[in-house]
Each structure stands twice: as C-alpha cells, then as structure tokens.
C-alpha cells in the first residue's frame, strides 16, 4: 500500500477537513494519496451534487410513462408504439470559457454518450447558449468558437442539432453558459442500465486512449503541490488541467459499435466515461450492481508516456465507454469493435463483495497494477459513487432584492416603439444554419420556430406515426427577480412552445446554472427555483426525469443571474402534416388566444421584460399565470394544431406563442417569416406591446367565426387583433414598419453585431 498523505493534501484536492474525517471513518483508516484523490474527484460538487441534492429531492419524478427517472445517465419515457425516448441535458460552461470550440464540442460528445449508454440512438441535440453582450470582442470570439464547436462536432458525429436558445446579457461576460440537450430513441426492449453484475464478468474500456485531458477538471484542484513517491507525485507538473479535444469521428464509430453490441446482446451493462473518467464509470457501475470491481491501471491504453495511476483513473479523455461483458463474449466483442476500428481493452473484473468486520457485504473498488498485482487503492464503490456528504448550505433572501422588485420599469419613459421593436428582433438563423438540422429525415419543424418537431423514427425503431417535440427555455431576467415564479413561468413557456406544434408535454429535464453555492443568496435562488419548477410540474403532472446542476458560475465574486434551463419533451400521436407555423396568409384574421392581461396587479407588467432590461431597468415584479385559463388555452391550441398534424383541414393558418419581446415581437416575427404584413387595432398601451408573460398565442385563421366558436366552447378568452394584409406591420398608432425592414433588421442583427470585427 502506498503511504498516507500529509493532512493538507485533502484541501488541495478540494476536500474539507470534515470530508477527510468522513473518508477516514468509511475506510476505517487513513486514505493513501490515490484513494484521497479518487474521493476528491468523486465527491466534488460536479460529480456528487452535494450542495443541490437535498433540494432536488423535492422535484416530482414519477409517472406511468416514466421508464427511467433521474439518477441514471438519461431519463427515459415510454412514447408508445414500442418506442422509448431518452433525454438528458448537461452544461459545459467552464471548459467553453477557456477554449470555446473544444469546450462546446466535447459538451456535445458527452451528452451523446449519456444517451447511447441507455441503448438509445441519439436523434437530436439542442444547445441553449448564454454570452455577454456582443459589443465586447471576447464575446464575439466565444460565440464564433462555441457555435463552430457544436457545428463541427454535432454535424460530423451525425446527430442533427434542431434548436436551442441564444441569450446575451452582461452577467455572462466572464462566464458563458453552454448547455446541451440530447434526445434519443430505442426499441423499448433494448433499454440498458449502467450496472455491473455477475462476478467474473469483465469491464472493457472502449474507444480513445487515455491522456492527461482535463485531469482535476471536475474537482476544484487547487494549486498546492503534491509530493511523495506514489501515483499523485508527479501531479505538480501536470496539474494544469489540459483541455479536452473532441474527436467526433471516434464518437461516431463508438455509437455504432455500442448500438451493435447491444443489439447483439453482448453486454451486461454499459456506462460512458464523463466527468471523473474511469473512476466514475467503474465505481458507479459497481455501486449500482452491489458488486466489487478490480481495475488494472496498467491495462488502460495511454496516449502519453509516464502517466500515473491517479491520472489514468481520473482523466477526462473523451470518447470512451466502459462495457461490462461476460468472458465468453470477449472475442465477439473484440471482433465487433475491430470492425468499427474501436479499441477494446479489458481493464477490470467484477468481483464478489467483501465481508466487512461488521458483517456487511461491501463491493470494493480496487485499483491495481496488473490484475494480480499490487493494490494501489481499495475503497467501497458505494462510498465513492453515492455517499458523498450532503450539504444543506445556508440560504438567505438577497438583501438587495426588495429594492430591485420595487423598481418597476412601468415608469420608464417610452420612446419610439418602432425603434424599440426593431432593436429587439434577432433571428438566430446565423447560429442554426451552421447545424445539420435534418439528418435522419425526421425534422418536421427545425430550429427557428417555437419548438422542434420530429417524426418518431430512426434506424432500428418500430414503425410509428407519432412525433416528438422538444423545446428549451430559460428566462434569467425573470428568475433574477423571483426565482420561484420565474422558473415556474419558464416551465409554462415551454408547455406553450410545445402547444404551438401540437404536442403535449410528457417530461421535463433541467439544467440549473447558478452562481457560487457558498453564497447564501445563491443557495436561496437555487432552492426557490427548484420549488418553482416542482410546483409548475406538479400542476401539469409532469415528471422531471433528469437534469444537471452547474454551480460556481461566478467571476470576481459576482454570480450570474439564476439560469434554470428547462427542456421539455412532448409527444404528438399522429403526425402526417406539418403544423401551421408562422406563415400567415393575406386576409387571415389575427386573434390573441388566452388571457390578454396578466394575472397580477398590473395588466401588462414590464418587470423582467426584454424591453425594460435593454434600457438597464432590471427591476420590477413578475406575476404568475392564472392556471385554469392557461390550462384551457393550452388544451385548445394543442388540439387545434394536433388536428392539423393528423391531416385534418382547418381554418387555423399560423400559430406562435407570445414570449420574449412580447406581443409586438411575436407579430413582427410572423411578419418577417410570412413576408406579409398585418393591420392590428390600437392596443391598451405601449406596455401591452412589450409585456412578457406566458399563456398567450397569436393565431391566424381564415374563418374567425368558426375559430371563435371553438374557443368559446373551450372557455378560452379570445381578442381579435386585426387582419393580415399588405406590406406593412401596423399596430394602432404605435407601430408602423415595412415588412422588408422588419425582415432585414431581424435577419442581419446577429450577423452585423458579430461582424463588428472578427
């Protein structure tokens, strides 16, 4: 056994004194350097969720159609027709800030592995992105890099990117957020879990060789030096976490090889290697299976000479998986991997749990040098994987929040509504044109609309005429003012987005991007956001089947605004015709469907709106939605659109929900896309143009009487806005702009801002 470390080493590894004590008591002795380092990564915030877990428990996670809830690599629902759909969202924020191309690229790679680990073929990616303002040259560099990283990896690996989010706000200047969501599908019976079982079975490492990539990347590896004769000794020199480089070609082959292995029934369990690398993959599979595992570090193919056990066990080299197989299948596994030119090395063995002095049977993870060689580390797999201490960190209502909430932007002087509207329009097409959004011939609605809509089809799937819809939403402006209501509203907005393509929400995934959890205000925000999400999901019987928490998004002591990103998965039962989209026609009547006024004190609140925020007014109150009206509205819109998708004729010709930028923006977006203007009557106020709250839809209909009749029958309020006509968008006396100008400004906004200089 290697010698015990000096007491201060654990702090250098990001472990507190109490955690060190805990480790000592778990082991019944002091850990050696290597063991301590393994705990250091596995008990890091990123791997163990130690600050957030007690709060995440409050989320609803079950439902009759949930096949796999949180805790596995991805959540899975039964989508019908024998098809299961897997979904997962992850953040890759910090790596993207250092090397935007590779950071974003490896983010895509990682999320794909989470999906095909479940036996699902990855079918689509979404990429919610958050940057500082583009007037800053570094932000432009980050945007270019991140977008080309997602494009470079996603296109090449062969998974379409079908949507995302794009937010610019100064709070992300030093800390951009790069979240990636992936959806996959599988024949229900192919579902696999990352479990090791069967004593004598082998752990086979598949994919890339292991280098010094991202060592210490997940743990807060401080710069204090290591010393000693063991594995951690040479860490000093290598501690600069080296940037992970993605290899989409390796990943593509890995996807195909793994899906073939699963189809051939050659694996017992499989797990991707992500954060914390091999130690995470082996300890998690062993812990889930209640078995022990021996890992031979010398059997791991290495890309660089002189790597030490600590580095091998924690490297975050990309494009690797660990498969648990029976020894009889080894030759078949090797042959299949050879076909795909995938490296396959036996690096571990499933062993009996060990009888502890207290009579317990405990699965031990042993790191060895050669299968029968020296034991370099020996720790209970469960302790590493599941038993990190949980913290209920102090929470505090932010002292500054009351003042901020009182500063309602309703008194902000109004200028030219025309100019305000033009300045707000941004077409993210510059981003998504760089993404293959059509591969697999499933994309019925691609990026650029309210939600993406896919045929539920793919190689190897049973036939189905169903479709799935996905949207990602976030509203940090709202959440800064009221994280609870803001997060709930974000869920509602996602539901509204799905309704626009005729899909009913079935499950939620979330990525909680927050600041430093050691700031009590941040913990309060996080806890509130989780409660808001839980309430909204409960109201719609929506299970939360997966998520990711990214903390420490701060710089210079300043935390980002709370940024919960909500991913929604919906299903549509019969998809043979595309939904109406935004393409309204001349002479259609335009109606606003849903409650025209907000539920709270103010009819048209501006707090947290894009309009107010652009003027530096970040204060005010946000109000929730009136649930009954919202529910009825969603049901009406979903039903109307679903009928169209099922092939029925309809008078509804266009549907768009009112969200960022308010009613005026929704109308302008439809104008730009349709290339036809509209004449809308005088509204109540300037605020009605730009107020943001979910639950309202702009619908164009060729037979307003018929539509109004159906709305009335469904108990849904409806307000006639005007008609589609001519080549100008006119809203009462406040807006009068030509279609061409709207389209041009919207199209060029992003390109012009990025072109300021390279």
């Amino acid at each position, binding site marked *: 056994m290697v010698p015990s470390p000096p007491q201060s080493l654990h702090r250098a590894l990001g472990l507190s004194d109490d955690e060190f004590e805990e480790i000592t008591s778990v082991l019944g002795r002091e850990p050696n350097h290597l063991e301590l380092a393994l705990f250091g990564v596995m008990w890091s915030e990123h791997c163990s969720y130690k600050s957030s877990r007690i709060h995440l428990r409050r989320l609803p996670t079950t439902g009759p159609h949930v096949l796999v809830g949180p805790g596995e690599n991805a959540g899975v629902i039964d989508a019908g027709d024998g098809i299961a759909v897997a979904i997962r969202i992850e953040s890759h924020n910090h790596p993207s800030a250092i090397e935007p*191309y590779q950071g974003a690229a490896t983010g895509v790679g990682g999320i794909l592995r989470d999906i095909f680990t479940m036996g699902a073929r990855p079918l689509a990616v979404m990429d919610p992105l958050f940057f500082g303002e583009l007037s800053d040259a570094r932000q432009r560099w980050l945007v270019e890099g991140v977008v080309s990283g997602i494009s470079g990896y996603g296109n090449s690996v062969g998974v379409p990117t079908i949507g995302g989010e794009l937010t610019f706000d100064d709070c992300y200047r030093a800390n951009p957020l790069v979240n990636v969501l992936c959806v996959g599908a599988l024949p229900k019976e192919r579902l696999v879990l990352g479990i090791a079982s069967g004593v004598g079975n082998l752990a086979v490492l598949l994919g890339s060789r292991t280098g010094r990539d991202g060592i210490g990347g997940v743990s807060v590896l401080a710069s204090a030096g290591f010393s000693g004769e063991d594995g951690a000794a040479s860490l000093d020199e290598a501690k600069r976490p080296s*940037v992970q480089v993605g290899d989409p070609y*390796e990943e593509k082959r890995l996807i195909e090889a793994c899906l073939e292995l699963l189809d051939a029934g050659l694996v017992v369990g499989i797990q991707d290697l992500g954060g914390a690398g091999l130690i995470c993959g082996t300890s998690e599979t062993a812990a889930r299976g209640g078995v022990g595992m021996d890992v031979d570090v010398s059997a791991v193919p290495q890309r660089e000479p002189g790597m030490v056990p600590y580095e091998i066990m924690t490297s975050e080299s990309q494009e690797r998986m660990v498969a648990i197989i029976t020894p009889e299948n080894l030759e078949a596994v090797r042959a299949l991997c050879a076909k795909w030119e995938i490296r396959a090395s036996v690096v571990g063995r499933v062993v009996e749990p060990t009888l502890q002095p207290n009579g317990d049977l405990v699965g031990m993870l042993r790191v060895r040098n050669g299968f029968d060689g020296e034991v370099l580390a020996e720790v209970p797999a469960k302790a590493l994987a599941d038993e990190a201490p949980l913290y209920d960190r102090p929470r505090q209502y932010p002292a500054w929040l009351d003042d901020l909430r009182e500063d309602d932007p309703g008194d902000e002087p109004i200028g030219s509504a025309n100019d305000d509207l033009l300045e707000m329009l941004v077409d993210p097409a510059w981003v998504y044109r760089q993404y293959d959004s059509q591969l697999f011939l499933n994309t019925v609605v691609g990026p650029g609309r309210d939600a993406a809509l896919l045929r539920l089809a793919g190689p190897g799937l049973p036939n189905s005429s169903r479709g799935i819809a996905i949207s990602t939403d976030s509203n940090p402006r709202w959440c800064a003012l009221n994280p609870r209501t803001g997060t709930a509203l974000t869920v509602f907005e996602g539901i509204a987005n799905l309704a626009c393509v005729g899909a009913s929400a079935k499950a939620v995934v979330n990525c909680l991007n927050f600041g430093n959890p050691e700031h009590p205000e941040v913990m309060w925000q996080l806890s509130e956001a989780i409660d808001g999400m839980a309430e909204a999901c409960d109201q719609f019987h929506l299970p939360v089947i997966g998520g990711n928490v990214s903390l420490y998004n701060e710089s210079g002591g300043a935390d980002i605004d709370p940024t919960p990103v909500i991913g929604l998965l919906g299903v549509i039962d019969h998809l043979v015709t595309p939904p109406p989209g935004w393409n309204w026609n001349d002479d259609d009547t335009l109606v606003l469907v849903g409650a025209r006024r907000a539920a709270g004190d103010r009819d048209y609140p501006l707090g947290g709106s894009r309009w107010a925020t652009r003027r530096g007014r970040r204060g005010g109150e946000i109000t929730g939605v009136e649930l009954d009206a919202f529910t009825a509205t969603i049901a009406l819109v979903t039903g109307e659109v679903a009928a169209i998708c099922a092939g029925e004729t309809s008078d509804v010709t266009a549907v768009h929900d009112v969200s960022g930028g308010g009613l005026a923006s929704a109308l302008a977006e439809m104008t730009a896309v349709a290339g036809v203007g509209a004449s809308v009557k005088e509204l109540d106020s300037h605020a009605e143009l730009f107020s943001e709250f979910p639950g309202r839809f702009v619908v164009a209909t060729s037979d307003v009487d018929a539509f109004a009749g159906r709305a009335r029958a469904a108990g849904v309020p409806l307000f006639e806005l005007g008609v589609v006509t001519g080549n100008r968008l006119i809203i009462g006396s406040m807006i009068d702009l030509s279609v061409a100008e709207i389209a041009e400004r919207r199209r060029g906004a992003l390109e012009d801002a990025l072109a300021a200089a390279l």
Partner: protein
Amino acid sequence: MNYFVIVDVTLREGIADPEGATIERALPALGFSGVHDVKAGKSFRMNIEADSQGAALEKATSLAERLLSNPVIEDARARLGEVHAQ
C-alpha cells in the same frame, strides 16, 4: 521593406490530435509503413511590411498568438520564409 513570414501552428504537447492519429491509422493500408507520431498542424504565409526582419517577426508573433492560434491548446511560431509569396 517587405518580409515573407510563415507562422506554424501546432497542437501543444499532450493535447489530443485526432486528425493526426486518424491519418496515421490509415497509412499501413496505403502501403506506408514505419511512419509514426503523425501530427496535423496549420500554417499561414504572409508578407509583412516592417523596418527590419526582427520587427517583421515580432509582428508575426503577436499576430500568431492573438489571432492565428489559441494558446490554451496551440503553439505558434513565426519564421522568415525563403521564397517571396505571390
């Protein structure tokens, strides 16, 4: 004066080089044996107006570091080229 400068950009040591590795894997099938450690890199050729060779190289180096490479994963070196570019 006009100097012809070449900037070579290579991946830093320890950074994975999937392109180089893929090319290397393909070589035996093409009948090339005994070729190892293939690394892919980029190069940029340019004419630089400057008062001296030294000044031209300095400008190229600054350009290389600020624009042509990302120092987190790449090394960039500027050198004087022999032929004058078109």
